[in-house]
């Protein structure tokens, strides 16, 4: 355990960097969404204000529910997301391997959904349970396509599993997005992370107008603040992951900074546009979409990747 690891997890690219950037991008999302709907939108520091205000509110626990699980889950999710941000961030910014490969990252990403489900359904609320059921269905829906997505860079890099090897391979051979299989997988990847972040049209588990934020319904105070924070952290983690496996990462010097901003901004803009132009779909539609339409495209991308296209 080296001292710099503490820096990685707490400051950069871990907790502090990810939360601050996430909250800012969250503001961008809210602002742009507001402009889409001809509203003014919140001021720049609104997300920070929301977070700290929630920290000051009281936490309502449900009688006859499992309190420890209810309280622990948002913080476990926070820990896992910080870990993910550190693993992906260290590889991206320092070009060094750190802790886990691409399979590890994929499985860590599942933990967030697990925590949502456990935390939500520990309350015994009907809406939370319905939301939890939808969350897990959405997970198995997008996971199939997501597996295809992450296998494409593995195959194209000559069966490398370490994130830094995949980035280095792209540095010498060009980013994977420049190939047919790469672009297919990348587009599919954006749709998958849309579902993983439960943004429209895949906000099925939370669906405010229908099941009142589903699993988060009974949350209040600091735990709710952390659920919201977790959500904003994903605005950093998932795009960074896509950048590293398809867009060849970046270097933070000279033009590299511009490229970094462009790549990140590009993904965020696409996500916000998708979010604001699509209404919520039903969960069975989502399952059908991912299993019957998205996954065959993923399979096609795999076959193309193996054939070297």
């Amino acid at each position, binding site marked *: 355990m080296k001292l710099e690891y503490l820096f990685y997890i707490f400051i950069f690219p871990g907790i502090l960097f990810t939360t601050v950037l996430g909250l800012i991008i969250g503001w961008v999302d809210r602002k742009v969404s507001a402009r889409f709907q001809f509203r003014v939108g919140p001021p720049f520091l609104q997300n920070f204000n929301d977070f700290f205000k929630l920290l000051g509110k009281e936490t309502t626990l449900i009688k006859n529910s499992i309190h420890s699980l209810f309280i622990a889950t948002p913080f476990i999710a*926070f820990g896992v997301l910080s870990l993910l941000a550190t693993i992906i961030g260290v590889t991206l910014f320092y070009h060094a391997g750190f802790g886990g490969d691409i*399979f590890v990252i994929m499985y860590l990403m599942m933990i967030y959904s697990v925590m949502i489900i*456990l935390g939500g*359904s520990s309350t*015994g*609320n009907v809406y939370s*349970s319905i939301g939890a*059921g939808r969350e897990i*269905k959405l997970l198995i829906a997008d996971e199939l396509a997501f597996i295809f997505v992450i296998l494409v860079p593995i195959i194209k890099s000559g069966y490398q599993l370490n994130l830094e090897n995949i980035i280095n391979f792209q540095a010498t051979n060009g980013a994977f997005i420049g190939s047919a299989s790469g672009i297919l997988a990348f587009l599919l990847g954006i749709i998958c992370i849309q579902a993983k972040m439960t943004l429209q049209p895949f906000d099925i588990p939370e669906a405010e107008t229908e099941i009142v934020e589903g699993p988060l319904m009974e949350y209040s105070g600091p735990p709710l603040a952390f659920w919201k924070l977790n959500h904003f952290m994903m605005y950093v983690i998932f795009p960074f992951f896509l950048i590293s496996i398809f867009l060849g990462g970046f270097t933070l010097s000279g033009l590299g900074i511009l490229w970094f901003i462009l790549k990140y901004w590009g993904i965020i803009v696409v996500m916000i546009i998708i979010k604001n132009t699509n209404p919520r779909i039903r969960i069975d539609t989502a399952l059908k979409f991912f299993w019957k339409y998205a996954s065959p495209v993923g399979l096609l991308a795999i076959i193309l990747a193996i054939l070297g296209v």
Partner: protein
Amino acid sequence: MLNNNLLLLILIPLAVSFLNIFLPTIIRKILVFATLVVTSVITVNLFNANNETFTLFSNTVLSLDKMSYFALAGIQLLSFIILIFSLKGVEKNIEKQFFALYPLTLAFSNGVVLSENSFSFLIFWGMSGLTLYLFSLLGKTKDSPQTAKKTFIIIGGSDAFLIMGLALVWFLNSGNSWSLLSTNIPLVDGLSYTAFFLFLIAAFSKAGGFPFHTWIPDYSKDSPIESVALLPASLDKLLGIYLLARMFTTIFEINVIINLIIVTLGALTIIIAVMMAMIQHNGRKLLGYHAVSQVGYMIMGIGSGSVLAFAGGLFHMINNTIYKSNLFLTLGSVEKRTGTSDLDKLGGLGKVMPFTFIMALIGALSISGIPPFNGFFSKWMIYQGIIEKTATLSAGYQIWMIICLVLAIFGSALTLASFMKFIHAIYLGKYQKRFSTIKKAPVNQILSTGLLSLLCIIFGIWAIKIPLNNFILPALQDSGLSSPQFIGTYNPQLMIILFGLAFITGIIIFLFTKKIKLDENYLGGMDSEERFRVLGTEFYNEVKEMTPLNTLYKWAEKKYFDIYNISTKFTISTAKLLQKAHPGQLQLYLLYIVVGLLIFFIVSLK
């Protein structure tokens, strides 16, 4: 002769089992416990042993190498922990038989993994199948006799195939020896392939590989839960996969086509069983299907032809026995307290049985391959091994292999989904008043499941240090395989520390800012009544109703895919044909005799 350690491992439990037929229950328990202490001590002492053998009539009957030691250690460990669970809480009316059968199972399982000679292997293998049948006869549901019959026919039938396989191996080995450890038969002609597949049927039936898996869900549903945790969940996996591992290292020389076939069968096992598990409404049956689906990973790992995946397959075998018996036992605790394993009737038990809930949750996360638990490590090794193997294949095979890999990874996501339903239906969801009087599980049950959960964590975080370096890598070395090289990175200790730091940061912020208030559920302003309840079992109705899965599910419910059903129908229809040939006319029978004689003469004249 009686100072031979290997023989003692079989004889002591055997003797205790015969003694136990006559003794009162309490002494039976003590004796079985003592037996397991003794066999465990012997096993520990054998850790550094070299070339332990037992010879009878100048044939080596029993021998110990690192591979058999690994399986042997697994058997003692699991039998011991499950025994702790069984000490209190086995149904009173079957307790006597249970504790006579328990050491018997142990003796035969030890015998299987220690046998070097084909005959002793066959005898022990068959006998361990018999104990399975006897255990399932102890079940008390109305389907129990049917299930026992089904189990016995599938397992016993596979023994017949194993006999033919062993005979063929002896023949291909030019009749030299009956030893199983030094044959190395190359798969070149029809005979060797036949021998291979005969062995495969035996291994698959025992472990529960597709399509010979159908007895496991039924057995899980109808037999005493302790025996389910002991046999299909642990010992049978150890035995079946042990045979499979032997087939791939010492008995046969494998080629790429076989690798692809076995990996495909593994992937099919995973996906078919997990799809069936998702829609189950009975907790035991759900776990039974998962007991099948996990075998798929081991089959894939061992069959893929990569050393890394082979090690992963062996590791997954021991991991699976740990978390699967843990899950069965926690369900057993719940069932003993509430009287049902029907997921529709349970719910909200996490509040009244907190320890059982935590153990079940750890088991569920392990089986779904969530880091840092043990299931993830072995799955991760298997995936890497398959990637490694794929890199060496031609493009067509690569596509094939990658599709199997996708099915395997997706299978683990579906496993997670299925277990979220399982956990939700039993422990989460709405708290029910009728369960408010339920007590926590007895101490011995909590201890037993707690030990298993602890092993899940230890084997996950110190995977390389403890199980791999001490048991699995020596086993590979002994079987003549090279040492595996990881191609990915995964550092569980570092991850746990970093995760812990972030988690504690969050908790500290919470502790400084918390203001707690208690309230009822919010339900749109209405009173929260017990009838407003989400069961969890209906989570996957959308999957069940999706075309073309709905048709497949319907066919599966009609048992069109059950090999037992298919072969029963086949046997009955063949028997009907034969019946028609026997109408009871003397002239016809005379004609048969004459024709038969004629054929006999023609053949013998040639």
